[in-house]
């Protein structure tokens, strides 16, 4: 039954979920632009963020202080990434490894498996719910869970903050330069390895933040990062690797397409609609909507 109300509701639901997926995509694309590697374990940092949020809320702060717990959770994921990078990723550049992409793939996939197993060992395979006291909010015709809406709003705020910091701070300038020329920025005096650590930390912290904000919505368990990783990468392909506006716009597109598809076509194929969008975009623009055009010849 197609009604304007259902259309509006689906659209809104899609936008909200799209914003959150975009956070994951932003993390992936940011890390790629600086460190020039794809971090396949992004979902596991989402998962860590959700676990830290759960423990902060369940043990220390209670669900009402979720907005204090979430930045703390994101920061803890930042620290984890910041200290992990020199161990795992830096050797890609310093140890004379030639096939860097393969190295990064192997290392981040190994990390993914290890983190998942670690979570299962430490916390058990059970789902946990930090709980949320946020009331259900009516967004026009759509009743939306308070936690989900809060996640979307915070996500947008963080993305805007990220953009502003990138444009106005010295660190942001160094990062933008590093994204354009990893080598050139070194000869200009920037310590690229420090940039790598910070960029990696920030990227995974974005995933961790998404996990923390969505903990009461999608629950906390060792494999809750899988879906978000998949969506994150779909978004990268659609929006173009290395493009920040691309991450947000593609995120929204994906959320909306999946939501409308599930509402009006067969809901069993919800995930397939996103892939169809991806295929269409690739046919038209192989490097993604905002991706850098690969030079011919």
């Amino acid at each position, binding site marked *: *039954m197609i*009604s304007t*109300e*259902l259309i509006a*509701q*689906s659209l809104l*639901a899609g936008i909200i*979920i799209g914003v959150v997926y975009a956070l994951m995509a932003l993390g992936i694309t940011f890390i790629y632009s600086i460190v020039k590697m794809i971090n396949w374990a992004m979902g596991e940092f989402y998962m860590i963020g959700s676990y830290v949020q759960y423990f902060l809320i369940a043990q220390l702060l209670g669900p009402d202080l979720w907005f204090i717990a979430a930045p703390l959770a994101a920061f803890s994921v930042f620290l984890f990434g910041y200290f992990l990078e020199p161990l795992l990723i830096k050797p890609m550049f310093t140890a004379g490894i030639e096939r860097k992409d393969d190295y990064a793939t192997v290392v981040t996939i190994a990390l993914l498996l290890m983190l998942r197993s670690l979570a*299962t060992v430490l916390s*058990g*395979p*059970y*789902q*946990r*719910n930090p*709980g949320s006291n946020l009331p*259900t909010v009516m967004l026009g015709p*759509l*009743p*939306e*869970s308070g936690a*989900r809406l809060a996640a979307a709003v915070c996500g947008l705020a963080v993305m805007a903050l990220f953009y502003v910091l990138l444009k106005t701070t010295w660190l942001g300038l160094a990062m933008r330069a590093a994204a354009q020329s990893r080598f050139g920025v070194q000869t200009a005096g920037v310590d690229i390895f420090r940039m790598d650590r910070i960029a990696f930390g920030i990227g995974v912290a974005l995933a961790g933040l998404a996990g923390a904000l969505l903990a009461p*919505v*999608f*629950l906390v*368990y*060792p*494999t*809750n990062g*899988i*879906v978000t990783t998949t969506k994150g990468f779909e978004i990268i392909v659609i929006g173009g690797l290395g493009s920040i506006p691309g991450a947000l716009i593609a995120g929204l597109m994906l959320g909306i397409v*999946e*939501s*409308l*598809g*599930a*509402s009006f076509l*067969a*809901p*069993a*194929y*919800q*995930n397939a609609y996103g892939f169809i969008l991806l295929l269409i975009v690739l046919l038209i623009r192989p490097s993604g909507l905002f991706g850098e055009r690969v030079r011919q010849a």
Partner: protein
Amino acid sequence: MCKRSCAFGKVCPLLHREAAAKTFGSAEEGTVAGLKSIARAGVLVAALGLMGGALHADNEPITIGLIIPLSPPGDPTAGQLIRRGAELAIEYYNEKGGVAAGHKLKLSVQDSQGRPEGGVAAYRRLVSEEHAIGVTGFFHSSVNLAANEVAKGMGVPTIGTQTSAAEITSKKYDVAFRTHVIDPVRVSAWLDFITQKGFKRVSLLAETSDYGVGLVDETVKQNQEKNVGLELQPMTFDRSSTDLTPLLLQVKAFKPQLLINIGVGQPMDLMIEQAATLGITPQTAMLISYDAPVRPQFWQLHPKNGAGLYFIAYYSPRQRLSDLGTWFAKAYEDKYKESPVYSSLNGFGDVAILAQAVDHAKSSNPKSIIAALEGGRFTSWAAADVTFPRAEGVYWHNWSPPVLILHYTDANQDWKGAVVVVEYAGTAAK
């Protein structure tokens, strides 16, 4: 180490203990004589591994395989609960001195992860490496179905502990057995519930697994055959979806009186929360299709939205237990400080049934075990005896416990105190 069974036995009967047993009359004498042959053969014997077949030498334990989900995407809580029951069954028989004149039992636990490939790999491992005489524990239907396809060739019987898809038994494989509620019985139970409540519009939200799709099809079928006259909204979703909002919006637009939640594990939990957020429940009633709400974690996950839910259960403390069941209930309470739930009861029961089958057959030969299962009467946890007749269709090799529909009226309610709305006797095979 050679792991092949009977092929070598045919060539070298003196090294094959089953053949030796047949030749020399009893397992023990056969083994002694076989050992003499082995001594003559020398090095060859050391190289060849155990062959399957006759009961092993004295004190060689008999292995029962348990294939359960212990990690996602399977339902690990279910797996753990089944395991608890199975372990207690092993304890029970070993304390009594073992089965078939002194053979102790050993449980080999394998993680299927709720995936068919996991189940297939586990079954193969259990049969070829661990020489299990029977494999049970199955929780996810798709895992049971996949394992049965392999079992058909490898010959070691399987008992589905909590799997409900029809084809598990309706394919009528010799190796396939089940002690759980089958779809027709489950659906009949909830149609009883629907009629009792006077519901006319019912939404079915099912995961696209064998379990989910089977139940939707069966409900549509019985609605027609029995002329119940319901308006049904059947919808399916991918198990890995975390966002069920689009489907729930359609449910909301349909304005049903009952929403049947046919998800297992995460999808089931997410649906409870998301339906509440969208304001579908509690005005619309929700029925959970299996007994997850009896688990201790349920209220932690759904502190606010659990009250008012209806759910299926397969055990109520008011039911009469067998002596074995009574022993089990007490042992479980002593060990885990909580009352046993169905998953544990049935896990216990299935291992007990296999132990009894070995006892009856006095052999670990898979064919003998199957014959024993088909012909015997077994004691499980429930008061009624268990039999596995060669009956028609889905009733082949099947025993169903009764189906209950319970209702949580308050938050944090103990499931034992939940109101029993329907009690549907498991239909015995004709």
